[in-house]
């Protein structure tokens, strides 16, 4: 027997985890260790580890079929049987925990025979088409047959079997081929434990048992399945298989990168054949997603190579002209000349630009740098304006840093979770799965939202509170909750004393009777007792965490509400440790990053104000220019100035402002008054229909860089294929800058990150090298926190003490009235993303082909409306037509729609009302009237005409016969 005394082998618990390996069962979180011997190797592992995992850590790989390391062991296949000294029979190693001094044998003749018998049974009911099977080369059943040395199948294949069971290919991305199923139930357990959807069941018993999506009448498409892919990944055979692999074969190499859809920032292995992505598989080493994914990141990547991609630069002098396809040099020269002429004629401040929350940090940094250094003004803004700008303002004012305070993982330590104005199961699905896991473990849920969101329907949840407030009354609600905390003496006196300022004024304000739930009842329409019960639950929890989304920020009092949330967290001492905190759920993948990178007009990268001479001097020195010390225009100010005639040119990277910004007709008017609109995007989007210069963009698969997710985690984006249009976005910005006469000369995005690290104190120790070593970094990462900061504000706030803010409730300007008696609120759904430019170009359209107006049965009945009727929706800004969906998810008096399709014109109706501090538009409250109609709105008719005309301008441009534009 060989004894290993090498400490590296002996203290195996310290061995780094190999995220490409399946250890069979999940890691134990215990801090205690246990020492045992497996096949003569001494191993030390965490208590609670399974024998299977302990062996795997020591590179002893016990055969297994029903176990995999992202779900709990189940012990059904028995292939992992081992012998343990002092124990009878053959215990299954996946369900047996290690014990001090245990002695395990994983291989001997008896065990081998047992395993061969088990495999023989499996294989006798399994088609033998290995050579032509889509899993060939990546099949655990095949591997196990090899591992146990199966050589013959004595039972023959003529008995009862499942070999001709029908294939279910109703899901657009994967098939279910039951004849290959070994009923290991890994899929069922993955759907329950990892995804939390409970869409799959094992029907029947014994030989008759089979996997079924929903009831036996359902197929995958008609079941509750949300197409997250967890079951496909868990399946050891070809039963659940990506259609792309069936079509194209097994991938041959893989590269780790980051999803470009939402602010969760999931890590994926892009599995490739040459330069073609075959599938995206969630990466277990990704700290934001830990091996899970949603339908968007997992499957909806086909847009990247969609035929609509525009891959050549185009220019034109007026939007009434056809596009001219030109080379890069000519396009950039054309754009630079226009900008220079406009600035010469109308002044330095007559031009500006918009950075993208979809592009990388490095690209965003370059665009704002170009605007500040080459345009010479601060007219830079970003689409975060229309979603999370109030988060920046509100959190900076109260806790000193414009970012969420926690990691996603922190929720596993929360006892009460309050979700305000967010719908995580649709907008942040992977985080929602983790949250649901915690709720199943017993945490309480409080939902503050006008809608009955899906989270409230979480299976096996112990307690939940829904406070279904009227849209626009968030501040009234948060004040009422804080009032209860204070008036019932539930505050955290210690925390308040040691960590906060300006408490007395706030205390006096919040204790005012006008803030009591009883007084606020008429405003929020929520029963006061219900509010009191929820407030008590939150205040009494050991760890209370608050998660919020755009339902908080996209209001005229968005910033006030963010401060109200911070007040509540401060008053209850829920900040500075795991399980608590203030957590903004960011919409797009890099909203956090684009804010960090200085996209806002008043702040240089790292939230350093332009008027601060010392801070500005640092940038002036590095960039070699004099910078403007006054803030520039925000997006709505740019539009106003454009209509007024003083703002003439815009450079817009990766952002469809026409579709995503409110009051579409106002935006159309503004864009039409520009003399030069430069759009850089992967598609000829709606905004580009008004453009003079089109610069083809690159998708996240075509470039290197970083995204920063909602937990401040900087993740690497890695190039897996060459840019279709030759250059990555950062290269194009650099070329434009050079054409404008401001030299930029980066060879690789890592050099841009080095520059950022030299200028932004919270990034000072971030580098690509460190990112590669650690996998990801949560900023701040500097001398004080060299490995980054998972939890912020542990000891103190960047402003010293947390500051309470006075947050009086003011009614939304856009209130329901006689003419517009209903309140419209907008949102998103799981399968589509934002303006839909990407997801609409994938099979995700299976689930959402059009935007619908959801209306409560009472309101529908009053107006004689049925499902599927055409409805005219009008507000003081405009009107549009959508199809009706009668739904009880809404309260009566409130209607809801998504904005994923341009023809819907959902933003034709949204108004210019905005947050008082940041001008973030009030998408969540618009007073409207709804009635049955027979024809599209005037706007839709005009839109169709204009869009058709632009299509012609594009089609007739030489060389461009194939592609199509717009929707």
């Amino acid at each position, binding site marked *: 027997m060989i004894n290993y005394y090498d400490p590296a082998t002996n203290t195996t618990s310290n061995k780094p985890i190999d995220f490409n390996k399946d250890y069979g069962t999940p890691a134990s979180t215990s801090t205690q260790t246990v020492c045992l011997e497996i096949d003569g190797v001494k191993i030390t592992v965490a208590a609670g580890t399974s024998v299977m995992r302990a062996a795997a850590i020591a590179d002893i790989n016990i055969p297994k079929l029903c176990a995999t390391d992202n779900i709990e062991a189940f012990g059904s296949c028995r292939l992992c049987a081992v012998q343990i000294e002092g124990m009878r029979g053959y215990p299954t190693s996946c369900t047996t925990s290690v014990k001090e001094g245990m002695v395990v044998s994983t291989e001997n003749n008896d065990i081998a025979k047992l395993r061969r018998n088990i495999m023989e049974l499996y294989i006798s009911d399994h088609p033998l088409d290995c050579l032509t099977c889509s899993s060939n080369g990546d099949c655990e059943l095949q591997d196990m047959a090899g591992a146990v040395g199966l050589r013959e199948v004595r039972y023959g294949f003529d008995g009862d079997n499942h070999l001709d069971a029908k294939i279910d290919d109703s899901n657009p991305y994967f098939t279910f081929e039951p004849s290959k199923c070994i009923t290991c139930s890994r899929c069922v357990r993955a759907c329950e434990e990892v995804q939390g959807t409970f869409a799959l069941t094992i029907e029947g018993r014994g030989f008759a048992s089979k996997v079924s999506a929903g009831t036996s009448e359902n197929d995958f498409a008609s079941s509750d399945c949300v197409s997250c892919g967890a079951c496909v990944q868990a399946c050891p055979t070809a039963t659940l298989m990506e259609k792309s692999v069936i079509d194209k074969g097994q991938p041959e190499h893989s590269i780790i990168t980051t999803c470009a859809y939402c602010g969760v920032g999931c890590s994926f292995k892009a599995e490739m054949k040459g330069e073609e992505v075959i599938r995206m598989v969630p990466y277990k080493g990704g700290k934001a997603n830990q091996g899970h994914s949603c339908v968007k990141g997992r499957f909806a990547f086909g847009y990247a190579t969609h035929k609509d991609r525009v891959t050549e630069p185009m220019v034109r002098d007026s939007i009434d002209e056809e596009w001219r396809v030109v080379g890069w040099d000519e396009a950039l020269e054309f754009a630079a000349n226009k900008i220079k002429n406009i600035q010469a004629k109308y002044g330095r401040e007559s031009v500006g630009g918009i950075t993208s929350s979809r592009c990388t940090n490095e690209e965003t940094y370059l665009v704002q740098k170009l605007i500040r250094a080459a345009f010479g003004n601060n007219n830079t803004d970003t689409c975060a304006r229309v979603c999370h700008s109030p988060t920046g303002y509100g959190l900076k004012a109260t806790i000193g840093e414009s970012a969420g305070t926690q990691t996603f993982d922190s929720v596993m330590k929360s006892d009460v979770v309050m979700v305000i104005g967010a719908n995580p199961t649709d907008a942040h699905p992977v985080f929602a799965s983790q949250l649901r896991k915690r709720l199943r473990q017993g945490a309480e849920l409080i939902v503050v939202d006008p809608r009955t969101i899906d989270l409230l329907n979480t299976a096996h949840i112990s307690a939940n509170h829904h406070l279904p407030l009227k849209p626009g009354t968030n501040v009234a609600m948060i004040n009422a909750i804080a009032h209860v905390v204070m008036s019932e003496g539930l505050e955290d006196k210690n925390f308040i004393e040691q960590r906060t300022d300006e408490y007395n004024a706030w205390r006096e304000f919040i204790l005012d009777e006008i803030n009591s739930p009883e007084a606020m009842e008429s405003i929020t329409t929520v029963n006061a007792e219900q509010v009191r019960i929820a407030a008590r639950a939150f205040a009494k929890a050991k760890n209370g965490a608050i998660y919020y989304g755009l339902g908080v920020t996209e209001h005229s009092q968005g910033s*006030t509400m963010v401060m109200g949330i911070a007040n509540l967290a401060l008053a209850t001492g829920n900040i500075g440790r795991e399980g608590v905190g203030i957590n903004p759920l960011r919409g797009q993948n890099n909203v956090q990053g684009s804010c960090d990178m200085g996209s806002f007009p008043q702040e240089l990268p790292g939230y350093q104000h332009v008027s601060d001479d010392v801070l500005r001097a640092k940038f002036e020195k590095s960039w070699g220019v004099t910078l403007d010390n006054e803030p520039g225009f925000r997006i709505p100010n740019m539009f106003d100035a454009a*209509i007024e005639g003083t703002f003439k040119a815009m450079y817009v990277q990766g952002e469809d402002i026409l579709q995503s910004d409110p009051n579409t007709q106002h935006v159309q008017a503004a864009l039409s008054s520009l003399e030069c609109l430069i759009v850089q995007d992967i598609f000829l989007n709606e905004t580009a229909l008004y453009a003079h210069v089109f610069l083809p963009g690159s998708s996240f698969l075509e470039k290197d860089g970083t995204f920063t997710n909602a937990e401040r985690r900087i993740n690497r984006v890695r190039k897996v294929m060459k840019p279709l249009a030759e250059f990555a976005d950062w290269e194009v910005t650099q070329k434009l800058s050079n054409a404008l006469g401001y030299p930029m000369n980066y060879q690789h995005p890592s050099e841009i990150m080095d520059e950022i690290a030299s200028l932004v104190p919270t990034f000072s120790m971030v580098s690509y090298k460190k990112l590669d070593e650690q996998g990801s970094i949560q900023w701040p990462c500097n001398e004080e926190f060299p490995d980054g900061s998972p939890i912020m504000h542990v000891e103190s706030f960047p402003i010293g003490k947390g500051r309470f803010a006075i947050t009086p409730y003011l009614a939304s300007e856009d209130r329901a009235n006689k003419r517009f008696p209903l309140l419209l609120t907008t949102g998103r759904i799981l399968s589509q993303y934002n303006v839909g430019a990407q997801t609409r170009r994938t099979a995700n359209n299976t689930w959402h082909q059009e935007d619908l107006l959801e209306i409560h049965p009472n309101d529908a009945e009053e107006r004689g409306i049925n499902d599927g009727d055409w409805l005219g929706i009008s507000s003081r800004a405009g009107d549009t037509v959508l199809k009706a969906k009668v739904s009880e998810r809404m309260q009566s008096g409130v209607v809801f729609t998504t904005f994923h399709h341009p023809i819907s014109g959902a933003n034709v109706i949204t108004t210019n009302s905005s947050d*008082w*501090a940041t001008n973030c538009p009030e998408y969540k409250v618009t007073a409207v009237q709804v009635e049955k109609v027979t024809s599209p709105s005037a706007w839709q008719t005009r839109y169709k005409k204009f869009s058709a005309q632009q299509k012609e301008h594009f089609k007739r441009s030489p060389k461009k016969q194939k592609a199509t534009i717009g929707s």
Partner: protein
Amino acid sequence: MSSSQIDNLISMLNQIETNNNYKKTDEETAMIVANHVKKFWARSMKANITKYADSDGSQLSPAIKLALAQL
């Protein structure tokens, strides 16, 4: 300077005021409004509203007038 743009600036100022005047004197509110405008408004927006305050100013509250005087 179009009237609609001035109207926008005025309503933005009103919003800033009403969100910050809880139990405050006009002088205190003015200071907050002035700081906010200094920190977040573009040069031309400040110039336009000041021009309006000097020439007409009828739609501005006392606190906002005080604030604009501090720019």
